[in-house]
């Protein structure tokens, strides 16, 4: 039985799944990924990319499409397949151009940019400069020092789950309890990062 025969099949069903519980969301992610993996071969033949690079372009594409669905950026003006292919083709071209740069960075900067759009340019510059000074390697190491509960709750938060959804997924009493715990975890991480 392949994913083509999976009960979640139409674009509408898939998009709806992203607004359901964590389990359905994960299934929808897997379905989108497995449904169009033949794009990887297309990247190899049409853009002459090695399989690993074509895989990177495709998996980054799927991650971006998932983010765009969750955040509402995907407006359903085209089919998911067409939308995905357009982004994939652009990423293949990007990869060819960025051969000498870190391939994994293609997708990584988007999360910071997405959050900073809520701040006007003059203040944004201040925050951006401070973020550039942040040692992400140290920060990521400090994340590992947090307890498992904290890592779980912050991972869901970073994956754009609401406090209400996190409460259901991790069996917290309410969204308010999740919020309090989440902010405590962030504060703990901050203290670890500052070396206090």
């Amino acid at each position, binding site marked *: 039985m392949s994913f083509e025969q999976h009960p979640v099949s139409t674009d509408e069903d898939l998009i709806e799944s992203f607004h359901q519980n964590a389990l359905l969301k994960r299934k929808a992610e897997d379905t989108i990924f497995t449904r169009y993996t033949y794009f990887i071969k297309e990247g190899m033949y049409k853009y002459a990319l090695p399989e690993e690079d074509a895989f990177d372009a495709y998996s980054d594409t799927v991650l971006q499409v998932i983010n765009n669905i969750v955040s509402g950026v995907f407006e359903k003006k085209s089919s998911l397949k067409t939308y995905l292919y357009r982004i994939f083709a652009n990423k293949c071209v990007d990869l060819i151009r960025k051969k000498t740069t870190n391939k994994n960075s293609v997708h990584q900067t988007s999360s910071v940019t997405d959050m900073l759009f809520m701040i006007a340019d003059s203040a944004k510059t201040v925050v951006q400069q401070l973020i550039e000074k942040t040692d992400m390697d140290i920060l990521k190491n400090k994340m590992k020092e947090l307890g498992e509960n904290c890592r779980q709750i912050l*991972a869901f938060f970073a994956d754009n789950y609401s406090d209400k959804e996190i409460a259901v997924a991790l069996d917290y009493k309410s969204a308010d309890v999740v919020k309090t715990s989440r902010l405590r975890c962030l504060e703990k991480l901050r203290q670890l990062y500052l070396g206090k």
Partner: protein
Amino acid sequence: MSNLKYIDDYFNGFPGDEQKQEFEKLIKNDAAFAEEVAFYVAAKAGFQQHAQQEKKEHFRNLYRQQQAVPVVQLKPAKRVWQYFSAASVLLFIFLLTWFVNNRKTSPDQLADTYIQQHLLTLPVTMGTQQDSLQTGLNLYKSDKLPEALQYFETMLKNNAADDAAKKYAGIVSLRLKNYDKALSHFQSLEQNTASFSNPGKFYHALTLLKRNSAGDKAAAILLLKEVVAKDLEGKETAVTWLKKL
């Protein structure tokens, strides 16, 4: 709790013009506040990057599974299964030692222990079973897992409501580490709520624990709680696992 709550409310709410101006003024005039904002954004981005990397690894595994072509070549397969059997024994000894020495057990180790103890052999001689089910179970017993899976899936093609075939097709897929196929069979099995002894949800949780990708543990815990709450098959093991997870 410093300014994190204020910053969190700002980014997760719908601030009006006045709130935006106040927030931006603080960033420009209060260096400590600006640093907290930068930390908040960087921390969230850090967790996002980590989650994306984990998802990418998960996608890589899915891709590899898709690429794996089931070639049946008897001689090499026999050798592979000999190595697999030897590796299974070593893995079992390792897991047993680990289990004895460590009360806290990781999800995939819990699943491995269960598979080793309960799923390596399945009851073959059951008088009421159909011949093809017996044949499938015999193949399973002989470690001919791809052939066993083919049998059970053929049975399902003939009778999509055959719960026993779904269960065994799921178990064989799990043994073959084809987790997506195993999940598909177990999810289909758990739809039959009329059955008094439906292990679908429990095996669904077992597969998630074995796969142990990002979010799998949380999803498995939800399923195990449901198994306990609804007194479904696997309840005793579910209670034990919930204490350890």
